[in-house]
C-alpha cells in the first residue's frame, strides 16, 4: 500500500478548503480507505474543529517535526471511522516552523500504511502553501463562483503549472443554481472557461455544511445532504471511479419554488 498525497488549496481564504478536506477524508474513510489528514495551517488550525476532534489534541505536526513525539502519537483517531486519522497543526507556532522537506518526510513515513493523505493548505501563496504542496501527488484547487475567488484560484493554478509536477483539478464549492439561473452568480461554465483545468466536482450551496462544521460532523456522513453527496462523489473520483456529475437542476426546481414562496427572485 502506498498512499496518494492530495493537497487541497485555493489561494483565497474562506472558500471551503478545510470543509472539503474534512468531508473528503470522511467520505474516503466511509469507502473503507485508510486516510490521514494533515492540517497545514500552522498557527490558525481548524481542521480539528470541523472533524470534531479538538479536545483530543495532545501533540501536533510541529512536535513530530521537531522530534518531541513519534508520528503515531500525533495521529488522532476519528470519532466515526477506525481508519481515519488527523495530524493537527500547532496553534502556537507559525508557518516557518515547518519546511517543505519536513512535509515530504512526514508524508513518506505515512505513505506505506495508508491509502490517502489529505493535506489542508492555508490560504495564500507563501510558505504555508509551499509546505502543503511539497509532497503532493495531486492538488485540488477549491474555488467559489465569485470573481475574487476565481482570480486567486487562477494565480494558484499558474504557480502549480509553472512547477510542472502537479496537475491541478478543480472543486467548485457553494454553487447556488438559482442564482446562476438568474445571472447573479458565475456558472460552472464561466469558471471553467477561465481556469481551463480538469473539474473534479461541483458542490452546491447547502446550509447543512455549516451546521456540520460547527458540530464537528461532516455532511459527507448525511445520506440526504446534496453537498454531502457531491463530496462523496469527489471521493469516488479520487479513487479513480467514473461518477456522473450531480444534476443540479433538480435542486434548482426546489430552490426556485422556495424562493418564489419567500418572495425572492425567480
Amino acid at each position: 500500500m502506498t498512499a496518494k498525497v492530495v493537497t487541497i488549496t485555493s489561494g483565497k481564504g474562506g472558500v471551503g478548503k478545510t470543509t472539503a478536506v474534512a468531508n473528503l477524508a470522511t467520505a474516503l474513510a466511509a469507502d473503507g480507505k485508510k486516510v490521514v489528514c494533515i492540517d497545514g495551517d500552522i498557527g490558525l488550525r481548524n481542521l480539528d474543529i470541523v472533524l470534531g476532534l479538538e479536545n483530543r489534541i495532545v501533540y501536533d505536526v510541529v512536535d513530530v517535526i521537531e522530534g518531541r513525539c513519534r508520528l503515531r502519537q500525533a495521529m488522532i483517531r476519528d470519532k466515526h471511522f477506525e481508519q481515519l486519522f488527523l495530524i493537527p497543526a500547532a496553534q502556537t507556532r507559525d508557518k516557518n516552523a515547518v519546511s517543505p522537506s519536513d512535509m515530504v518526510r512526514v508524508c513518506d513515513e505515512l505513505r506505506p500504511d495508508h491509502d490517502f493523505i489529505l493535506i489542508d493548505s492555508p490560504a495564500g501563496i507563501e510558505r504555508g502553501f509551499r509546505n502543503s504542496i511539497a509532497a503532493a501527488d495531486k492538488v485540488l484547487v477549491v474555488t467559489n463562483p465569485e470573481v475574487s475567488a476565481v482570480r486567486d484560484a487562477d494565480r494558484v493554478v499558474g504557480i502549480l503549472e509553472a512547477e510542472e509536477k502537479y496537475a491541478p483539478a478543480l472543486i467548485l464549492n457553494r454553487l447556488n443554481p438559482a442564482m446562476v439561473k438568474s445571472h447573479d452568480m458565475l456558472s460552472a461554465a464561466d469558471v471553467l472557461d477561465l481556469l481551463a483545468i480538469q473539474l473534479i466536482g461541483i458542490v452546491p450551496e447547502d446550509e447543512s455544511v455549516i451546521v456540520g462544521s460547527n458540530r464537528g460532523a461532516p455532511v459527507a456522513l448525511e445520506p440526504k445532504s446534496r453537498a454531502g453527496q457531491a463530496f462523496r462523489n469527489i471521493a469516488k473520483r479520487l479513487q479513480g471511479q467514473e461518477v456522473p456529475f450531480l444534476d443540479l437542476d433538480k435542486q434548482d426546481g426546489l430552490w426556485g419554488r422556495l424562493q418564489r414562496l419567500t418572495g425572492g427572485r425567480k
Partner: protein
Amino acid sequence: MNATSSTVQIKGLRDSLLVALTGETWEENQSALLTQIDERASFFQGARLVLDIGTQALGVDEMVQLRDLLSERGISLWAVLSESPKTEKTAQLLGLATRLSNKPRVEEKRPSAEPVGEDAALFLSKTLRSGTRIEYPGNVVIFGDVNPGAEVVAEGNVIVWGRVRGVIHAGAKGNRQAIICALDLSATQLRIADEVSATLKPQKNPRPEVASINKDGRLQAELWQPG
C-alpha cells in the same frame, strides 16, 4: 579569502540581503552560496534574500530547487534580479519579485515617432494566468488567453490569439503607433504609450478587435475588418 567568497557578494539592504552571484556556471554559484550560508548560518537565519544572478538563464526546476534549499535553511527567497528574460520569466511564474522597488527603473519615457520594427517579437504559446507579468522590449504575440490579473507590457505591438481579460500595455516606452489586437478584447485595461482606456465590456459574441490611438489622440478599439 577563498574562491567562494569572491563568487558571492553580499550587501545589506533596508529589509533584506542582496546577494550577487558572479560565478561562471549555475552549479558553481549555487554551491558557493550554500557554502557561505552554511558557514554563517546565524547571520543568514530568517533573512529575506534578493539574488542577483546577472545573465544566467534559470529554468523552473533550478529555481524551485534553490528556493527549497534556502527555505530548509530558514531563508526566504524574495526576489531574483537578472538580465536574462528566461530567468525573469521563471521568477515571475514562481511569484518572486524581479526588481527592487527602491531601485529606480532604468527605462525612461522617451516618445518616439518611428513605427515599431518587425525585428524582435516574443512568442508565447500558453495562457497567462493571474499574477503573471510579461515585459518585453519588442512585439509580443500570445497564442492563448490573457486572464484577469495578468499583465503584458511591450514596447511594440501586442497580438493575442485568444481572449484578453487582463491588462495590456503596448508601446510602453511612448510609441503611439503601437497597436493591440485580439480575438476578444474584453480587457480590464488597455494602454498604448501613455493613453489609458477604461474597462471594455465583455461581449456576448466576441469579434476580433484592433485597438490603436486615433486621429484625436484617444485610445480606441475597432472591429477588425478583413481585407
